[in-house]
């Protein structure tokens, strides 16, 4: 059977796609199955849809020029030289030329000066706050006296080598003896809780 096909093909000079006869049965069977399927998809479109379907696309792609109604001469945007009529118009009237340097000095110089001063003050203020060497000793003494900062004796001596601390006695011997005489020290040590 196969030889018959080959000889027929050779004699007539007609050619077939590869595997045509092997696939033919499958093709026919598939066609028979699909005969039972509905041929139409069942989808529909709004009335006159296809007459208007491409209008939004045209509006999107070509619409802007038509909407405002203005047109420009052909090749207008490709010009490399200024047209003579525009050049002539520009040379008719006298125009006042303000040098850029003067304009800058008049408009921007005051703003630049104000900004520089503001920056200077800001950075100087910051430096005073952070460098202890620039603080007068009198100021520190005042802060300590007013309890604005709390430093113990050794810390003060460490930071300020030139500061002399004077020893101050809060109780004299008589006061201490009197206190101990009136107080039961044993009771305090054994019974009462000690506040820390």
């Amino acid at each position, binding site marked *: 059977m196969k030889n018959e096909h080959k000889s027929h093909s050779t004699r007539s000079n007609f050619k077939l796609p590869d595997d045509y006869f092997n696939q033919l049965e499958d093709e026919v069977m598939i066609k028979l199955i699909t005969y039972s399927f509905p041929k*139409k998809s*069942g989808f529909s479109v709004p009335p006159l849809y296809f007459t208007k379907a491409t209008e939004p*696309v045209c509006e999107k792609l070509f619409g802007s020029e038509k909407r405002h109604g203005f047109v420009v001469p052909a090749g207008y945007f490709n010009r490399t030289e200024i047209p003579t009529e525009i050049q002539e118009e520009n040379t008719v009237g006298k125009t006042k030329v303000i040098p850029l340097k003067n304009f800058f000095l008049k408009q921007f110089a005051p703003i630049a000066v104000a900004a520089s001063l503001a920056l200077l003050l800001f950075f100087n203020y910051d430096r005073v706050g952070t460098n202890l060497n620039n603080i007068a000793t009198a100021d520190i003494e005042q802060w300590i006296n007013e309890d604005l900062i709390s430093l113990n004796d050794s810390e003060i001596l460490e930071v300020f080598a030139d500061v002399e601390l004077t020893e101050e006695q809060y109780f004299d011997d008589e006061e201490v003896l009197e206190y101990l005489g009136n107080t039961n020290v044993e009771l305090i040590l054994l019974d009462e809780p000690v506040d820390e």
Partner: protein
Amino acid sequence: MKEEEALLSALKDPEQRERAFRELMSTYKERLYWHIRKIVLSHDDSDDILQNTFVKVFRSIDKFKGDSKLFSWMYRIATNEAITFLNKKAKMQQVDIADLQYKMAENLEADEYFDGDEAQLTLQKAVATLPQKQQLVFNMKYFDEMKYNDIAEVLDTTVGALKSSYHHAVKKIENYLKKMD
């Protein structure tokens, strides 16, 4: 073919571009619309995708090298646009694309622009159960009656692979319809 060449050269000429593009849309709008519609099912979505397809065609016409037919190239753009749309929709609804398509087919009954009978509705549901590529092949071969060579050009695959896909699709649909009887 000569007509297509003339249309293409007019599309690339700024002076004739608008006229040529209107002609192109007028020629292919219905075929492209029905191709898109069978993928996304809803008329409104198909309308949006058809417009986006034409805009994309217009903007990339200079890149078209003529390696395939102009219509096959446009068909490919439309297919990509429709599938991208479905993927985005599935992502937004956080569902699998296969689930989304079946859900869309089930909702066809309520669609204002679907007036198919029971058999047509069942066929659409059956198509929605197929893998994406088999759906495309089935729609193009069965409904659009395209030749395998043309489908191969659109989907960038071989005729042999297409035939196999189509046969599988038909068998699956047959089984689905038998189950529904």
